[in-house]
């Protein structure tokens, strides 16, 4: 063996990235899927007629995104051909084990729900829509538990993770639906005219979700900042360290504060501004997934 290789090892732990970018993308896609599914059920499950135009496109997107998302899991796993082990050898204390069933049931339910929606069967659509809501919440909520249960990393081992992930899922989902409405109406609609009622309605939803998301983000970070040694280190990494540009700049300012101002300001209430805010939010939430996943395991443990 080459002795120089053996002797030039770092004096601390060799860097070992467990999750990385593939998992961040996976979290982002499941979040978008859960968000768009819930928007889709606003009309077909809860009878909010205003959002009827989003029912079909919502369920199609939810299904497609949730079929694409597990591909990143297979890409990330070392032995993708052994994925069937997940259904044979179960472990009740592992969120990934819960996820293997959620990731199977949720798209199946999406397809059934979509099938009845396209067939025009309002009653069955409603039933499967309402079944889908807890599934959508679980399919994204469990990803928060994945990080919470990985107790080695201070940034992850908080009970904030599931609710933080669910909120950001809704934020990104609503933002995506605003964009989808604009694109759909402008380029594919009969009159080439954007349905402002839907866009502004979603904008209002986005406004309050962003406020809640900022609050959660603040709670999480402030408790880390005043917490025990490793938590403080993690908070400093995000506030002043390597991840500060993406956390403060992209995620918080560009992805949450600026869109919040744009959507809240009634003087600039126009479709293009809302579309721009939605793009910023979608980029910001992607940055959030990267900050949490990559930032969480950035600090060496020993």
């Amino acid at each position, binding site marked *: 063996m080459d002795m120089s290789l053996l002797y030039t090892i770092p004096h601390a732990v060799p860097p070992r990235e*467990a*999750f990385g970018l593939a998992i961040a993308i996976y979290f982002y896609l499941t979040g978008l899927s859960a968000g768009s599914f819930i928007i889709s059920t606003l009309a077909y499950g809860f009878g909010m007629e205003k959002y009827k135009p989003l029912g079909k496109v919502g369920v199609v997107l939810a299904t497609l995104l949730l079929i694409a998302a597990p591909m990143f899991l297979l890409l990330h796993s070392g*032995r993708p051909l052994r994925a069937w082990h997940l259904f044979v050898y179960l472990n009740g204390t592992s969120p990934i084990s819960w996820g293997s069933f959620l990731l199977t049931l949720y798209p199946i339910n999406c397809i059934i729900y979509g099938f009845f929606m396209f067939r025009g069967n309002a009653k069955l659509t409603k039933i499967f829509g309402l079944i889908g809501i807890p599934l959508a919440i679980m399919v994204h909520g469990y990803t928060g538990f994945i990080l919470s249960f990985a*107790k*080695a990393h201070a940034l992850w081992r908080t009970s904030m993770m599931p609710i933080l992930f669910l909120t950001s899922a809704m934020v990104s989902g609503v933002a995506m639906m605003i964009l989808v409405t604009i694109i759909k109406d402008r380029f594919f609609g009969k009159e080439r005219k954007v349905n402002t009622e839907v866009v502004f309605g979603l904008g209002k939803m986005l406004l309050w979700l962003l406020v809640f998301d900022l609050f959660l983000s603040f709670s999480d970070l402030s408790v880390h900042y005043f917490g025990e040694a490793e938590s403080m280190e993690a908070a400093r990494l995000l506030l002043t360290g390597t991840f500060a540009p993406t956390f403060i700049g992209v995620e918080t300012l560009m992805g949450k504060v600026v869109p919040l101002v744009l959507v809240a300001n009634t003087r600039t209430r126009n479709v293009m501004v809302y579309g721009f805010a939605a793009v910023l939010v979608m980029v910001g939430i992607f940055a959030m997934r990267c900050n949490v996943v990559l930032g969480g395991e950035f600090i*060496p443990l*020993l």
Partner: protein
Amino acid sequence: MAKTRYGFLIDLRRCIGCRTCQVACKAENDVPLGVYRTWVKEVEKGVYPKVRRHFVPILCNQCEKPACTRVCPVRATYSLPNGIVYIDPHRCIGCRYCMAACPYSVRFIHPERKVAQKCDWCWPRVRDGFGPPACVASCPTRAMVFGDLTDPESEISRILARVPTAVLKPETGNGPMVFYIGLDDEAARLVEAGGEE
């Protein structure tokens, strides 16, 4: 037969940082290039000319309540009755969740087999009666002791009964089973903010 619970003890006052344990482990377990089942962490203390290096060999703690086995979605990693945390390489799907959960970063993905691997205190070697783990057998200063904690007459039990020891990161609640004599507080924590230097 009485129940066996293996334990591991490292006397850091004796450790000279020669990395023989690291090399012996590589040879014994056929560990590929770039990854390590055990390594020697180094910390420099003091200001020149009054400086001193501290060495801390790191290996799997074979925890009492391991975070890794709890999160493995396919139960590919589990505690043996003797306390050693073992990995079934034929069942592991390489999802790396155990790597994310381990507070000691001892797990890695085998570059060729693409499954999780880590130190198992040379369990196959110990089981088959070839003596203690390779690192223990090769340590030139005999800083490492391996033995049965349930046997009060074993060397490790006798030392643990009369010498103060410490473990790494007891606050995780994992119940680590590698005991250190003379563990330096600075060496036990991560090196510096953001892992620099």
